[in-house]
């Protein structure tokens, strides 16, 4: 998993994205570890094209799909789908068109903070946004992280630490 590099590549490719999930938790100060990186991406034609182009050099394939299964992470595939779980040369990357509890890209963007990662100002889902999405997802692994997220949110509010 190459978080800093992946953010740089998407940024340089002009992709509109918000870091969500475990990577967003880590960037917000959680001690939680994750092995993949989740993003919410804008579903506009231009952004879909940029996303396909940015990832092409990193050989994206559907994670867990049988070898040899014909798959191209191109504009048409992205436009026809919504959520993609990919294995790439950058590691496992998930691209979601919508986030449970929040909605589509614009709602996710509205619930995000700007964080500078490796010199790049990128959007990262806020702690409030993470709490809302984890509550809505409702799986045991989502609910398990809620006490930490709520505690972290309280620390930030009371101390002003970012």
């Amino acid at each position: 998993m190459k978080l800093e590099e992946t953010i740089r590549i998407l940024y340089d490719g002009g992709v509109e994205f918000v870091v969500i999930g475990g990577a967003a938790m880590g960037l917000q100060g959680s001690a939680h570890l994750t092995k993949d990186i989740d993003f919410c991406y804008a579903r506009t034609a231009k952004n879909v094209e940029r996303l396909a182009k940015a990832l092409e050099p990193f050989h994206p394939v559907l994670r867990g799909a049988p070898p040899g299964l014909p798959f191209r992470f191109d504009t048409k595939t992205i436009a026809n789908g919504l959520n993609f779980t990919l294995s790439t040369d950058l590691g496992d990357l998930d691209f979601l068109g919508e986030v449970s509890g929040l909605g589509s890209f614009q709602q996710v963007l509205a619930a995000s903070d700007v964080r500078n990662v490796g010199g790049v100002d990128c959007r990262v889902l806020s702690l409030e946004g993470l709490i809302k999405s984890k509550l809505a997802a409702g799986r045991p692994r989502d609910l398990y992280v809620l006490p930490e997220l709520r505690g972290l949110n309280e620390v930030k509010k009371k101390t002003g630490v970012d």
Partner: protein
Amino acid sequence: MTRDQEKALLDLVTNPPPGSELAKAKEFGVDLTLFISTLRRSPTERARSLSEGARIFQIAKQTHLSEK
């Protein structure tokens, strides 16, 4: 992080106010003292730490699988 913020953070994680979210997290089993190191880091340092954690996890997983 300023010195005052660091002091306030230390107070909160070592003595979470009763009924607070921090107290609930501690009771749940969250090690609140980890916040001290994670919040001292910049987002870039957090990103690097996440990547390093994932790399170590991957090595441990491969070692476990090869020993099976």
